[in-house]
């Protein structure tokens, strides 16, 4: 997007600062609106998919009333939530209660920004993209705590405390396992990382196949990511059977919808990070090397990227509808006694690998043996 702005602005005379400012802001707003629209559409679709997947797994059919195959179910849900009475508990801390869902939603939306959807489609290619994602997702815990406290409900407070403890703890294995992958392309920029994974039939140079340590890192990351977005078996902050609905017990209507959408937004984001860092992002498998027109390549890349992300989201849903929930201390145990040490040793292993083999992956080594 920066390039786009620069390209437009370069054609203008530099003596019109106000116009330049307005145009810049206009482009920003428009692109933000596009992302918002896409993310809302995705979130609607994800809620539908969740229910459909749950139905399939539970030997049911799932939503099939609204629109063909129930595809418009999310519209009906959205309308329902919009029309619902917006209740603010009398004893709630009004301000905190009101702003918390907006922050949660904004944050989950902000995480869509540095993602690289294809070679040229990205909103902002940050140099610190991966770090930005981690940072922005840690803000969620703050907003959740805000809502939990603001509700002035004990179940909410339990949920908020649990959520914060969980998110803060699970950031450690997430960062450690991501590091194991990042040290190979040696960049925090999403685009650079994906660009590094080109070649090797478009699949064997994915970082997940780079060396055994990245393979482990991928699984550690994925497990920790499920915990980070509070999904079963790690959904203790909103464990329905224990603490009613956790931090959003008191929320109704659109405010609840914001929390709800944020959860699905977070799912997309963590899956997108996994796809970017480990699964080659938008690298097209097998036919990536074939020459094709730029537009086709871009479309294919976006399609491939979304396919990877949706597959990971499907796995998350599949796990959710299979496993029972962990207890809060067991969750911490999993984090501190299993994931963190594994990620740590894994990181050391990956560093040694990179140091000794000069960031050549398994595929490079095998390819070298064969070409020799």
């Amino acid at each position: 997007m920066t390039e786009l702005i620069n390209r437009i602005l370069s054609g203008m005379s530099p003596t019109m600062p106000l116009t330049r400012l307005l145009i810049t802001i206009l482009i920003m707003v428009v692109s933000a609106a596009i992302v918002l629209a896409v993310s809302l559409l995705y979130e609607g679709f994800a809620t539908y998919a969740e229910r459909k997947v749950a139905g399939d797994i539970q030997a049911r059919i799932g939503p099939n009333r609204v629109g063909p195959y129930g595809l418009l179910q999310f519209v009906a849900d959205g309308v329902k939530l919009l029309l619902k009475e917006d209740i603010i508990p009398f004893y709630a801390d009004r301000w905190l209660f009101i702003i918390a869902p907006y922050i949660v939603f904004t944050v989950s939306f902000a995480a869509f920004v540095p993602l690289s959807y294809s070679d040229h489609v990205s909103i902002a290619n940050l140099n610190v993209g991966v770090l930005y994602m981690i940072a922005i997702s840690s803000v969620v815990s703050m907003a959740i705590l805000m809502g939990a406290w603001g509700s002035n409900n004990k179940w909410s407070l339990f949920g908020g405390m649990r959520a914060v403890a969980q998110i803060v703890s699970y950031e450690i294995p997430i960062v450690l396992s991501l590091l194991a992958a990042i040290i190979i392309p040696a960049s925090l920029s999403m685009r650079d990382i994906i660009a590094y994974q080109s070649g090797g039939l478009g699949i064997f140079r994915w970082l997940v196949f780079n060396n055994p340590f990245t393979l482990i890192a991928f699984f550690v990351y994925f497990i920790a990511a499920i915990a980070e977005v509070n999904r079963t078996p790690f959904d203790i902050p909103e464990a329905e059977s224990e603490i009613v609905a956790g931090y959003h017990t008191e929320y109704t209507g659109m405010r609840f919808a914001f929390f709800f959408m944020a959860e699905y937004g977070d799912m997309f984001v963590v899956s997108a990070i996994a796809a970017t860092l480990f699964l080659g992002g938008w690298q097209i498998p097998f036919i990536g090397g074939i020459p094709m027109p730029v537009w086709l390549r871009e479309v294919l890349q976006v399609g491939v990227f979304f396919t990877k992300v949706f597959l990971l989201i499907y796995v998350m849903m599949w796990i959710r509808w299979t496993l029972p929930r962990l207890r809060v201390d067991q969750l911490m145990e999993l984090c501190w006694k299993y994931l963190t040490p594994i990620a740590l040793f894994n990181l050391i292993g990956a560093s040694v690998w990179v140091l000794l083999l000069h960031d050549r992956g398994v595929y490079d080594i095998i390819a070298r043996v064969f070409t020799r």
Partner: protein
Amino acid sequence: MSVNSYTVQAVFFYIFAALIVGSALLVVLLRNIVRSAFALFFTLFGVAGIYILLGADFVGVTQVLIYIGGVLILIVFGVMLTHNVYSVDIFNKLGTLVMGTVSAIVTFTMIYYAIKPVSWLYIGYKANAPTTGPIGRELMTSYLLPFELASVLLVLAMIGAAYLIRSEVKVKKAAGNGGPPGERPADGIRKEN
């Protein structure tokens, strides 16, 4: 946001500055201590925004990660665990006012004298250059000692915290059947099967 236009930067600077100053004032002036803690959230966020405007994207993001994701959470937790949060009377003594004024004056004087001798260098727009690599290199070369010292300090703090918690558990265990929570301390919780 890295846009090649000083005006845009200026606009965003003022937005962030207003956010920082406004929320900082809220932190100080709000009588509800929990709300002040949450107002700090916006202050820290604004600071991160300023960093990013200055082209220090790594520092900005780290600010969010550490201050909002870590320090602020701790502060809020600390505030929430204060008992009778709502009835904490912040302005209870005249002494506080005097002390506060004095310390504020001292702090501002210090900041003033720290800022004054600096010959400000206008570097202009210099974003987009990756800062992570240089920072890492500097940390591992010129500033290795402070870096390691800081980590040692953190480790010490962690050990201390762990020790404090352990001793509390021990006290609970020693209390035996004194009260409902002491009874069967953490039975079935910390135990492994």
